[in-house]
């Protein structure tokens, strides 16, 4: 059984790519088959992820040398505990979002054209994300980033409406810049160390002059920090995310920033372990990200924008854990990444449901949702409290772990960050309660509710004439392809089911917190020791 494990490693990359190709071949003729292929592919990825999760925990990191080229020459795929966890959580999330978007697509009766693009692009995005998580080669990491970014460009600008093109421009240009910085860093690293294999680099980089190491490390971190939306490199995120369709925003918010965080963890543990100056820099940026991000969230009156700012803010917690560079800090960061992927995605999906119910996500318009739609109230309340870190939910456990790690570190800066994270948690609670009070708990007549069954004509839609209200720009709910949507009291069962499943997944993190914390501690030990990874890659394991 253990012999077969390495063969599983490339599957999360290969299966979605293969399925995407298959779908392009099928085309738009059979939407049902298309959807079936997507779901089966992602379910396969999820199963692979779970198998890897247990296999890696039992047998150590699994390595595949792609194409059979030996260790320093070929591209290496590595699944260690961190990769396996990330692949599992991300595939669970993407599966949920896929089901949600299928439900939305059916409900909105989209024409086939945008769908034919949506599903394959989504699968390619998943392949890119998995590639970034599994790769053991710095240049392949760049390729993985490019795969996921390019498909995210397509998803972000889908429908080609004015608002999305505008938001997409910012997003594409910023992402391109980060890619160029990453590529320059790779070129410099190759020039300095003569290899781009991460395990090989881990051995060689330590021999370089300290100043040169610092330059390379900071360049890599800069590229990753733009992707992870760490302050002050985060301004693009709240500007671009809210315009995309709900499922797209949900998966972007959950995954793409976390890929940046994952890459930062790798850079800080495997490539450049123990550089005090950089750790201090990371801690300061973590503090700024947390506090400034949450201040932004407090000022928002639109649910999606508010959630985007909380996303930025909570990236700070993960950077905090990375910056501590201790076993506890790293374990807290890993646990928090897994928790936050789930919670943030769920919240954006719920925002999509709110938009479907009320035709708006603006707090000025929304009111009385708890009375009008109690299901929605429950679905929002649990992940919102989870995000704010109310005991006993997993958000609380993640924050507690990080705070304990900070106290254990004991330096004044660590204590400052502990204080900052407590304040951020409180302010997150404040903004969530504010959202709750406005959208859910106000008397229904206080807002400007849109009557049920109203066709909200999207002025983003090209076909809408000049008589369409220009006020509705950016507010009217739009489906995947930017089409107009009916407000409705009845949610499509697949949308609701996917959201419920993700809420339950978030709750499961709480129920199974014991084993999960144990797993993330093992992960942190493995990451900081480096030897299991290096031994697995360098010492045999070649195939």
């Amino acid at each position, binding site marked *: 059984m253990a012999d077969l494990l390495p063969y599983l490693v490339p599957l999360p990359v290969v299966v979605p790519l293969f399925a995407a190709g298959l779908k392009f071949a099928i085309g738009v003729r059979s939407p049902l088959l298309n959807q079936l292929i997507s779901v089966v592919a992602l379910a396969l990825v999820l199963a692979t992820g779970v198998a890897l999760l247990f296999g890696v925990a039992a047998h150590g990191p699994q390595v595949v040398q792609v194409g059979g080229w030996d260790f320093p020459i070929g591209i290496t795929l590595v699944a260690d505990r961190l990769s396996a966890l990330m692949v599992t959580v991300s595939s669970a999330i993407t599966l949920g979002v896929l089901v949600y978007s299928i439900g939305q697509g059916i409900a909105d009766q989209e024409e086939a054209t945008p769908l034919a693009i949506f599903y394959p692009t989504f699968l390619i995005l998943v392949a890119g994300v998995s590639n970034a998580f599994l790769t053991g080669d710095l*240049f392949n990491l760049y*390729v993985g980033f*490019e795969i996921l970014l*390019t498909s995210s*460009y*397509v998803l972000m*600008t889908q429908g*080609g*409406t*004015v*608002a999305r*093109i*505008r938001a*997409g*421009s*910012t997003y*594409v*240009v910023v992402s*391109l*810049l980060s*890619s*160029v910085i990453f*590529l*320059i860093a*790779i*070129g*410099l690293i*190759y*020039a300095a160390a*003569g290899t*781009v294999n991460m395990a090989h680099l881990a051995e060689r980089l330590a021999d370089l002059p300290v100043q040169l190491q610092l330059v390379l490390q900071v360049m890599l971190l800069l590229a990753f920090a733009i992707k992870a939306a760490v302050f002050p490199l985060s301004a693009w995120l*709240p*500007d671009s995310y809210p315009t995309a369709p709900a499922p797209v925003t949900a998966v972007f918010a959950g995954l793409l920033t976390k890929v940046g965080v994952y890459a930062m963890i790798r850079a800080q543990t495997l490539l450049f372990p123990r550089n005090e100056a950089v750790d201090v820099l990371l801690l300061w940026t973590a503090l700024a990200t947390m506090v400034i991000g949450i201040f932004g969230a407090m000022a928002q009156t639109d649910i999606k924008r508010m959630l985007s700012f909380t996303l930025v803010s909570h990236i700070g917690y993960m950077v905090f854990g990375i910056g501590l560079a201790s076993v506890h800090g790293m374990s807290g960061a890993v646990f928090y990444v897994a928790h936050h992927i789930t919670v943030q995605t769920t919240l954006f999906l719920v925002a999509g449901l709110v938009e479907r119910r009320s035709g708006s996500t603006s707090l000025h318009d929304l009111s009385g949702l708890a009375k009008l739609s109690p299901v929605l109230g429950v679905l929002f309340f649990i992940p919102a409290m989870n995000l704010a870190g109310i005991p006993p939910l997993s958000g609380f456990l993640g924050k507690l772990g990080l705070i304990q790690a900070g106290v254990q570190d004991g330096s004044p800066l660590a204590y400052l960050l502990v204080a900052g994270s407590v304040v951020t948690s409180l302010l997150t609670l404040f903004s969530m309660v504010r959202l709750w009070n406005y959208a859910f708990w106000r008397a229904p007549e206080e807002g400007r509710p849109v009557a049920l069954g109203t066709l909200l004509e999207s*002025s*983003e839609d*090209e076909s*809408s*004439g*000049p008589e369409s209200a*220009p*006020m509705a*720009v*950016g507010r009217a709910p739009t489906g995947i392809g930017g089409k107009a949507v009916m407000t409705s009291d009845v949610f499509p069962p697949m949308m609701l089911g996917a959201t419920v499943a993700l809420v339950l997944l978030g709750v499961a993190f709480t129920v199974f917190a014991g084993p999960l914390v144990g797993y993330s501690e093992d992960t942190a030990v493995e990451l900081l020791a480096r030897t299991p990874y290096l031994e697995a890659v360098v010492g045999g394991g070649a195939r």
Partner: protein
Amino acid sequence: MNDTPTILLIVVVGVLVAAGVTLLLERSLTRILLGVILLGNGVNLMILSTSGTPGGPPLLGLTPVGEMSDPLPQAMILTAIVITLGVTAFLLAMAYRSWQLQGHDEVQDDAEDRRIATGGERRRMRQYIRAQRRALRQAIRAQRSELEAQIDAQDQLEEAERAVIREQIAQARRDLEERLEAASDDETRRRLLHSQAADVQSTVEEARRRMLRARSELAEHLRADKEKERRLRRELRQRIRAQKQQLRASIRAERERLARAEDSDMQGVD
């Protein structure tokens, strides 16, 4: 690995990257696209320079192993070129779409900035309204205190008049008693009493009339003042409402203008 790249390559890389970054800072997507292309080429050349001095093609049997050039940077550059090509095509499509929709391909301001801008307008308006309210309240307060002073003066006047009347009544009584004592027989006394009483009655009557008149005058005054105050308040309320409406209309017009600027279908419709 032979690591002596030519200086020429480095200079070209510098120029390309500098030009690329400059273009990247522009607002038009087409220029950004050109910047991305230049930047990509610059970085690719940089990676090429990491392979050291040029050698023979890295093919076994064709070139001795020692004289081969490093193949890995070339492989990386090829990958990077393909990626840049894809992204360039996408950016080009996006720029074209933007031009199709809006007539230009410039990246516009953030919605947040816009909100802050209209927020400033609102704040100014609120301050203005607050100042006006404060001025009205002061004016009303001044009027009230003036009125109170008037009422006080009137009260004093009344008091004085009352004292005078009281004095007169007392005087009349005294007169009456004197005369009663002076007159001996009953008949004259009764007559005298009668006429005296009529006298006193008329005096008192007159005083009361005067007092009533003064009072009604005062009430009239008060009513007029109150009326004036009410009118002032109403006027201010109307003025504030009109101003608020105007502000709201201007904000709406601004929004429409922005929306129209974003929506190509709306262009030239007004």
